[in-house]
């Protein structure tokens, strides 16, 4: 009886292993802060936090000057669980050396603790900061900067 079921169990086990992949936002084998596929870009190695929530961002494709770039990011608490902050989130690009920003970034919530940011335009090479902000009634209550060099 059990002997006859073994191939079935084996098949089911194999199917389970093959079909289980990492989350699309977590499947990149590179370090979580790396910007994949871009040569000559510096990668920030420190952790990013908004209050006690860690931000783990990933660009969805190679970053291009002038083109519309996008990134996904997840927010996790100290236990590694996906969480939403109690305040609204805003992303903003800023070029500190030149003292100006860029086009407004569009932020979309995918699911709890999972967000997608699009329309990220780097309009010139140089040092940029991507600001992750928590906003309460128009005021910034927490902010984290992700330095990016293009």
């Amino acid at each position, binding site marked *: 009886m059990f002997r006859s079921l073994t191939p079935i169990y084996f098949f089911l086990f194999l199917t389970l292993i093959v079909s289980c992949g990492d989350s699309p936002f977590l499947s990149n084998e590179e370090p979580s802060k790396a910007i994949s596929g871009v040569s000559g870009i510096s990668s920030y190695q420190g952790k990013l936090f908004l209050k006690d929530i860690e931000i783990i961002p990933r660009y969805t494709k190679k970053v291009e000057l*002038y*083109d519309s770039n996008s990134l996904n990011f997840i927010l996790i608490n100290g236990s590694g669980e996906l969480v939403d902050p109690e305040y609204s989130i805003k992303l903003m690009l800023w070029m500190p050396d030149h003292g100006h920003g860029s*086009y407004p970034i569009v932020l979309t919530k995918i699911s709890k603790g999972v967000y997608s940011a699009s329309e990220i*335009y780097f*309009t010139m090479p140089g040092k940029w900061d991507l600001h992750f902000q928590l906003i309460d009634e128009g005021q910034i209550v927490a902010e984290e900067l992700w330095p990016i060099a293009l």
Partner: protein
Amino acid sequence: MKIILTLFITLMSFGAVAHCPLYFADENKCASLEWTDGPVLNANSSFRVFFWEKGDADHSYVSPEQSVEMKTWMIMANGHSHGGPTITWDEVENGVFEVADAKFFMGGMNGHWQVKVIVGEEEQSVNVEF
């Protein structure tokens, strides 16, 4: 009085024929840019660029023989200048090019935006006023 009237009509006629906001000497063509939505800051703006033969009072639209490209350009007060977000265009009919994704922003910059229309190697600019 008749002389003045004749002169006025003649000058107006020349004005109509000579209307050439953007002149591309290589092809002896004129172009104009008309906004269909905007221009606005921090949202998509749309415009059309029309080409015609210089001197054609009817402004019958003709497609340039050379490639047509367009881009937005920021000229900053400090003397620096740089491009804006990439825009795309379609030739919706002969000599009529449509852009629906022009993106302008200030973001703390002190300067003004232009739209650059490029035919072959020749470039003409239109200042953007919000």
